[in-house]
C-alpha cells in the first residue's frame, strides 16, 4: 500500500522509537463530538484499522452536530452527508458506540478520558462567538446569526430564545460577510416558500418567519467584495432567488477593482465571487430603494464597520439605527493582505433587527493548549502540541479533527481532507507503537461505569434511531420531512431513557 520510499522512512523511524514488542492489540479510541469531523474520523479510522474500538461522545442526545443543527434547512442536499456518516455507525454496531447527552467537561474530564483510551480525538468544533464590542450592542432585537440558525434547526439549547420578527419590522442589518450571514438573509427572503416549510425547520420557527415582512436586508462588511468570505454557491443562490433585488451601497467600490491585479488573478474563488457581485449588484437608485413592489431588497454594504447601535425613540431599548464608519482598504504589499481602516466619515442606516455574524472565538478545554490568535488547538497535522509553537513536542495520544484543528473556517467540503490527515497521523502513531498499546485500557467500559455511578442519563445509537423515527412520524403528520423534538422531557419518554443505561453495555 505504501510507496517504497515511504516504507524506508517508516523503517528508519521504527528503528529509533519502537519497543521490542511491536505487535499491537486493537486500538481503543475516544472521539469527542459527533458532528461531521467526529464521524468522518470514525469513518476513516475504521477503514484503516478495522478492529478499532471507538467511543463517540456528544453533549447533545443526538449525533450529527452541525449537519443537524448548523446547515440551513433549505440545504437538504448538503445534509445528505448524514447518510454516509451514519452508515459507518450502522455497519459497526459492535465496535463503534455513540454516547449522547454527555458533556466532556461536566460529566467526565479529559484527564480521565485520556487515561482510559489509547487515543483521543477532539472533534468538538469551535463554539465561542465574537461580539462587535460597540455601544448599543445590548439593545433589544440584536441577535446572533448562529443562534438564529441553531434555533430554527431545533437545537435544544436555543429553544428558549425569542426572535422578534413581527411584521412592522422592515429593515434588517446583518453584520458579517460569510455564509452564515447569507443563510439568515436567504431564510428571511424565503418566508413564503412552501419547500422551506416542508423541510426539517421547526414548525414554530417557520410560523414566526412566515409572519415576518422584512423588506430591506443590509449585509454589512468592513472590507470589500474581493475580501468577503462568501462562497460562490451560496452567493449565486441568493442573487438568483426570484423575489429578490440585489444592490450595492456604492457601485464604484466594485467598478474600481482591478480584475487583472495579482492577488485576484491568483485566487479562483475570490475571482468568481467578484464576478457574481459584478454581474448582480446594481447601484442604489437616486430616488431610493423600491419599497412598494413584492420583492425584498438585498443590499451589500462594502467597506463599512458598525460603530454604534442607536436606540429607538419610540420603542424603548429597541434598536432603530446603526451608525457605520466608512473604511478604506490598506494593502500590505509584502503579504498582499488587506486591512480595513476607518476614515472618520460616518453614515447611518435604519434597522429594526440586527444579526451579528462576524466569526468565532475559542472556548478553551481544560488541560489542552489553545491558540487564541488562530482560534484552534495548536497541532501538527492533527497531533496536539504541548503548547503553541512547541515544535515537535506533543501530548501523547491526543489528536484534533475539524474546526478545532484548523480554526473555524471552511465548509463541510473541507472536512474530508482535514480528517484524512488526522487519521493518517493516528495510524502512523499506532503503527509505531506510540499509543500505549501494551497497557490494558478500560475504554468505553470505564466511562459508562462512571456515568452510571453518577446517575447520568445517556443516549445510544438505538435511542437516536427511536428519536429519528418519532421525528419522521411527526413530520409526516405535518406534511413535512421531519419535526425535530426540541423538549428534553419529550425525548426521555420516547427513548425510555431511564432504562437504557443497562442496554448501553454490549
Amino acid at each position, binding site marked *: *500500500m*505504501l*510507496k517504497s*520510499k*515511504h516504507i524506508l*522512512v*517508516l523503517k528508519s*523511524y521504527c528503528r*529509533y*522509537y519502537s519497543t521490542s514488542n511491536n505487535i499491537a492489540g486493537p486500538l481503543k479510541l475516544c472521539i469527542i463530538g459527533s458532528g461531521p469531523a467526529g464521524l468522518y474520523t470514525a469513518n476513516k479510522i475504521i*477503514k484503516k484499522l478495522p478492529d478499532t474500538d471507538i467511543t463517540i461522545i456528544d453533549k447533545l442526545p443526538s449525533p450529527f452536530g452541525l449537519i443537524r443543527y448548523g446547515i440551513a434547512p433549505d*440545504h437538504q*442536499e*448538503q445534509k*445528505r*452527508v448524514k*447518510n*454516509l456518516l451514519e*452508515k459507518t455507525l*450502522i*455497519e459497526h454496531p459492535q465496535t463503534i458506540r455513540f454516547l449522547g447527552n454527555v458533556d466532556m467537561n461536566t460529566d467526565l474530564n479529559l484527564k480521565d478520558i485520556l487515561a482510559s483510551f489509547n487515543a483521543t480525538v477532539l472533534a468538538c468544533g469551535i463554539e465561542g462567538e465574537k461580539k462587535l464590542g460597540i455601544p448599543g450592542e445590548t439593545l433589544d432585537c440584536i441577535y446572533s446569526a448562529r443562534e438564529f440558525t441553531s434555533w430554527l434547526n431545533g437545537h435544544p439549547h436555543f429553544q428558549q430564545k425569542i426572535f422578534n420578527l413581527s411584521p412592522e419590522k422592515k429593515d434588517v442589518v446583518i453584520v458579517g460577510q460569510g455564509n452564515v450571514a447569507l443563510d439568515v438573509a436567504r431564510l428571511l427572503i424565503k418566508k413564503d416558500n412552501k419547500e422551506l416549510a416542508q423541510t426539517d425547520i421547526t414548525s414554530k420557527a417557520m410560523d414566526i418567519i412566515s409572519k415576518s415582512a422584512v423588506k430591506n436586508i443590509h449585509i454589512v462588511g468592513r472590507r470589500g467584495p474581493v475580501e468577503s468570505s462568501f*462562497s*460562490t*454557491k451560496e452567493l*449565486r443562490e441568493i442573487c438568483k432567488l426570484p423575489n429578490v433585488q440585489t444592490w450595492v451601497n456604492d457601485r464604484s467600490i466594485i467598478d474600481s477593482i482591478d480584475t487583472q491585479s495579482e492577488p485576484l488573478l491568483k485566487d*479562483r*474563488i475570490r475571482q*468568481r465571487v467578484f464576478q457574481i457581485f459584478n454581474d448582480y449588484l446594481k447601484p442604489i437608485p437616486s430616488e431610493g430603494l423600491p419599497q412598494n413592489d413584492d420583492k425584498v431588497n438585498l443590499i451589500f454594504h462594502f467597506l463599512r464597520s458598525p460603530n454604534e447601535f442607536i436606540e429607538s425613540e419610540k420603542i424603548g431599548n429597541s434598536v432603530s439605527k446603526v451608525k457605520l464608519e466608512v473604511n478604506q482598504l490598506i494593502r500590505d504589499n509584502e503579504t498582499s493582505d488587506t486591512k480595513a481602516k476607518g476614515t472618520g466619515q460616518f453614515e447611518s442606516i435604519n434597522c429594526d433587527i440586527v444579526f451579528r455574524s462576524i466569526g468565532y472565538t475559542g472556548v478553551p478545554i481544560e488541560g489542552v493548549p489553545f491558540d487564541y490568535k488562530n482560534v484552534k488547538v495548536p497541532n*501538527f*497535522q492533527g*497531533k496536539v502540541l504541548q503548547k503553541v509553537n512547541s515544535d*515537535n*513536542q*506533543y501530548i*501523547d495520544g491526543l489528536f484534533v479533527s475539524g474546526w478545532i484543528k484548523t480554526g473555524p473556517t471552511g*465548509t*463541510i*467540503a*473541507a472536512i*474530508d*481532507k*482535514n480528517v*484524512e*490527515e488526522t487519521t*493518517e*497521523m493516528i495510524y*502512523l*502513531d499506532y503503527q*509505531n507503537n*506510540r499509543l500505549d498499546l501494551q497497557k490494558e485500557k478500560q475504554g468505553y467500559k470505564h466511562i459508562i461505569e462512571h456515568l452510571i455511578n453518577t446517575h447520568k442519563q445517556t443516549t445510544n445509537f438505538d435511542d437516536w434511531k427511536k428519536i429519528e423515527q418519532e421525528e419522521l412520524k411527526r413530520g409526516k403528520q405535518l406534511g413535512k420531512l421531519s419535526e425535530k423534538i426540541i423538549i428534553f422531557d419529550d425525548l426521555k419518554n420516547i427513548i425510555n431513557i431511564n432504562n437504557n443505561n443497562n442496554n448501553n453495555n454490549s
Partner: protein
Amino acid sequence: MIKSISTPLRNLIKFQYNSNYSLSFNRLNATNTQRYFSTSSNKSGKDELVTFTFINKDGSKTVVSEPVGTNVLEVAHRNDVDLEGACECSVACSTCHVYVEPKFYNKLPEPTDEENDMLDLAFDLKENSRLGCQVILKKELEGMVVTLPSATRNMFVDGYKPPKH
C-alpha cells in the same frame, strides 16, 4: 453463486443491498435499473463498456470497465475505490473531486457554474479538477486516468517527524 450472474445484475443486487441501510441512493438506483434493463437486450453490450484507470490515494491503480452513461462516482463505489460522495450526486459537496488526465479532460463538456462553485471548495484544486459525479462515461474516455486527490500522499516523506519523549 454470484460468479454466474452478469456484472450489471450483480451491481444491481449490490445497490439494493445498500438500500437496506436506508441510504438514499435512490437516484442512482433508478438510473442503474433503467440502464441495465435497456442494455440487457443489447447484443453488442460489450461495445458499451469504457475501460479506464483510477489512481488511488495511496498511489495504487484500479482498472475498471463500466458502461457508457455511468458517472465516475458510481463507478468508484461499485469498484471499492475510496471516493466519497457525501451529497449523493446533487452537486452540493466536493467530496467526489478527482483529477482527469488533461488529454481526456478536454473531451468532457465544460463544467456548469454549479459544478465550478463546488470545485471552488475542493481540496488542492488543479486545472484538470472535476467532480466525479459530473464525469459521465463515453467511448472517447477509453483509457483515461482518473486520480484521487490525497491529503496524506506526501505525509510520510515531508511531514511526519518522530515525536520526542
